[in-house]
């Protein structure tokens, strides 16, 4: 097990280098250091002297991949790419172009992101699974058919509509919750109810359909027939046998997502003014803050890889047949 995890971590390193390379190339192709300087200095009058001073200040005056002036190995190492990547690998994200410590910022913003993403994820999982089980229980009935059509309809609406409609109805017209905002702690529940509800609802269509098909696949298995032959009620068959076996394929899709919950939801956070990592990322894209985007891409990849490893580990926990 330990050796396996170690192996996976070692395997992750070339992937992360590749990720870095891609982002680095993309962003320096788009964003010459001059651009960054101008965006950051952002004043009414930006003189060339100011730009030069800024670049030197930030260390963006180095060569990208190959420093022709340096000697020996430094040709490669004394470059922007290697320097910046090395920092990332030690989780030193450096400073944003607004001169704030990105690492500290990420730490601070993970909370709000999780406050939305985690409950959304959990509630959605529970609702979707229970609804799916319900449909499987009444499979083939009119209820099943009509709910499946409703599910397809729910799927066919862009998430943006749900958010707009939710805000107009719940906040603007009915005064149930604040329109947007965030507050840490229990007092903040009023802010996160609506985004969570919308997040859950928007995902219900595809979620229920997916889980339903998984459970239906299970319900045709032989062991379910065995369980019925034991005299178990249909509810017990579903909750004890089908659910437990259905959880295995669900795990593959679900566990990989858990770490990326930290990244937050781009759209939701910016609509509801949640100061999480999602809105951080959007702002960074819009203001072309290379340092933040790079950090977020790196973080996203790391979390994704962690998710993959967790998926494997969770299999060993939940599926007795799998051993690492």
């Amino acid at each position: 097990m330990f050796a396996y995890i170690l192996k996976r971590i070692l395997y992750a390193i070339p992937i992360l280098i590749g990720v870095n390379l891609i982002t680095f190339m993309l962003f320096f192709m788009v964003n010459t250091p001059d651009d960054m300087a101008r965006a950051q200095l952002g004043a009414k009058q930006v003189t060339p002297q100011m730009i030069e001073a800024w670049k030197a200040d930030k260390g963006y005056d180095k060569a990208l991949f190959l420093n022709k002036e340096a000697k020996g190995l430094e040709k490669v190492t004394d470059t922007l790419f290697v320097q910046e990547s090395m920092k990332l690998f030690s989780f030193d994200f450096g400073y944003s172009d607004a001169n704030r410590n990105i690492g500290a910022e990420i730490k601070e913003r993970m909370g709000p992101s999780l406050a939305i993403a985690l409950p959304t994820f959990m509630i959605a999982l529970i609702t979707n699974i229970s609804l799916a089980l319900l449909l499987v229980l009444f499979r083939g009935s009119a209820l099943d058919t009509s709910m499946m059509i409703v599910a397809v309809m729910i799927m066919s609406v862009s998430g943006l509509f749900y958010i707009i409609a939710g805000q107009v109805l719940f906040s603007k017209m009915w005064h149930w919750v604040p329109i947007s905002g965030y507050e840490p702690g229990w007092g903040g529940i009023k802010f996160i109810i609506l985004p969570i509800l919308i997040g859950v609802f928007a995902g219900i269509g595809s979620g229920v359909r997916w889980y339903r098909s998984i459970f239906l696949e299970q319900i045709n298995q032989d062991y379910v027939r065995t369980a019925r032959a034991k005299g178990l009620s249909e509810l017990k068959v579903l909750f004890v046998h089908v659910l437990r076996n259905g959880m295995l394929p669900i795990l593959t899709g679900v566990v990989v997502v858990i770490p990326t919950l930290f990244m937050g939801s781009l759209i939701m956070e910016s609509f509801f003014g949640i100061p999480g990592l999602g809105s951080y990322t959007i702002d960074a894209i819009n203001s072309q803050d290379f340092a933040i985007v790079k950090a977020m891409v790196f973080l996203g990849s790391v979390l994704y890889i962690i998710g993959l490893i967790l998926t494997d580990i969770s299999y060993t926990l939940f599926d007795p047949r799998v051993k690492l």
Partner: protein
Amino acid sequence: MKMIILKVFLFMMILEPLPADVWNNPHDSEKIATQTLFSAFSMPPKRLDPVVSYNANEWAIIGQIYEPPLQYNYLKRPYALEALTLKEMPALTYYDLEGRLVDENDAHIAFSEYRLRLREDVKYQDHPAFVKDANGTLFYGKLSEEALENIQTLDDFEKQATRHLTASDYAYAIKRMAVRQNHSPILDNMAEYIVGLKAFSQNITKIAEEKKRTKEVLDLRAYNIAGVKVLSDHTLSIRIKGKYPQFIYWLSMYFFSPIPWEADLFYQQKGMKGKNLTWNWSPVGTGAYYLVKNDPSREMVLKANPNFHDERYPSLNEEERNSSNIPRELLSDAGKKLPFIKEVIYTLEKESIPLWNKFLQGYYDASGISSEAFDQAVQISASGTMDLSSEMSQKGIVLKGSVQPSIFYMAFNMEDPVVGGYSESAKKLRQAISIAQNQEEYISIFMNERGIAAQGPIAPGIFGHLDGEKGTDKVVYEWKSGKRVRKSIEVAKRLLAEAGYPEGISMKTGKQLKLHYDATATGPDDRALMDWRRKQFAKLGIQLVIRSTDYNRFQDKVRKAKVQIFSWGWNADYPDPENFLFLLYGGNAVVNTNGAGINSSNYQNPEFDKLFDEIKIMSNSPQRQEKIQKMLTLVREDAPWVWGFHPKSLALTHLWFKNVFPNAMANNTLKYKRIDAKLRVEKQKEWNQPVLLPLVLFVLLLVLSGYFLHKLYLNRQKAVIKQER
């Protein structure tokens, strides 16, 4: 049935603990009942360091914290400066090259000197940097990294202290400006005027570089600028090259805010930057407020500075009161000690929609009016003035409007072979386009009438701007029966034909004239805007190709004069025509200054430039007015810009928000304002009663479907196998 009862009971349980009042209050409900102002910011201010800050949203914060020597009077119109930390307005004396005192109108003026006498009762906010031990050395001057370990914010320092403001703090600020690494946007400008600043800057920049390399602290007290002299603890003199009357305005800007050396050294300590303890994030000032919390991701909190010096609400004498239309209630607090509001909470609101809705719900005390919300908020009354819609006025909302000292214009690149140049045909082409751009329609569609069509570069309220026929651009408009009327499109077409493009077809090539318009169009609203723009050109038969990019690249193109037609704007730094006309001064042209200049249309007219040099050093007088009008006639003829419009800012405030008086020049207006907290609490409750019916219906639906499902399952459990025969 049992289940239903159970569920209804559960429902009651859930409802019970909910607050009896409102559910959707986004703020701390206790603070609503106190002198706390709730406001919003859409972009987190990135730099609160007065040496670099040059943005309206940054100034809105640091304006309350820092105090430059001068400020604009809150109530007086036209805008007038008054002393803030000074005992009186600076004394101005003139010297010739030999250093002899000379008269104001003397031809030999080589220097002018401003002498600033500071008030003695001005103190800084409490800050750990000021704490000294018994020996008088800084207590937190040499913090080790371990000591910083548990420090996250300034509050984590046990001790705090204050000290009096001294003249050397202002000198220190100018020295900081000179350090290139601090990226001051006005350094290059000021170096032209302040004696010795240029040389000092070059010198200190090298020193700073060296110190950075050796990781030493840069203490600017050790260096001095020739033209900036600290005469005593509370007296400072600044020497200016030649005559530069506008300098006095600069003294009201935050670049000239006092910087205590203790804090500068404090923030330079290792490890501070990692904790976001920097000038950019933790300002130290003498103002009415100090920054308690700066979380750019969520909120910023200002609190009233207990050390704030004695400042009183301004009063006006009878004459002033009568000359300007100042509402009486603005004067009711006259003479009372400032500030009134004890705490300000700025919340991040990136989207305009939630902001507007929260304002309507009473959760923000003031709001601007986005164009979407305009016709909801504003009606035009019979007398032609803008007024609140009945819905708004029923809520007790108050409308405040003022024309901004700004201009948005569409510029031609005068270096461009097609639209540029000073030939008759090029002029006529530009004039034709100018006529075709129907600014009035633009203002109506995109600005909801919140703006006035510009007749020249100078904004209303600024010396040099004239109303009526005299202030009308005769190239584009006609004066008809007491009104300005845009010339008809036929006139434009004629001009275009005379320019060599009949019906938009070039006589030379026989092809349709195709022009390129650079824009920073990325938002959702921009498509309509671009469509409109294209239509204006299409009226002349000209095809407009729009090249939209992000703002960065757009700036870059303008700097390199790689544009043909583009739109831009200017927001005045100070209420003087020079601050507008220099946008067209040949010496500031981008092509002449290697991209550094402010004249992005590259307009160069020797006659205009000569007049500019003259008016620049004149004080306001009929002579100055005459010269300015001459200059305006010149640029209207050459038409390097399509004048565009001056935006009108409209602000809405709730009834409980008092003493609000728009002042386009002043930023530190928070201290004058007051809140009627009791009224606020009442109104918020009244406006935000939750609508319960849908909730009840929803729960009922849940209960019913639960019951239905239960029934369905029971039926299945009862199932027997039916035979078909």
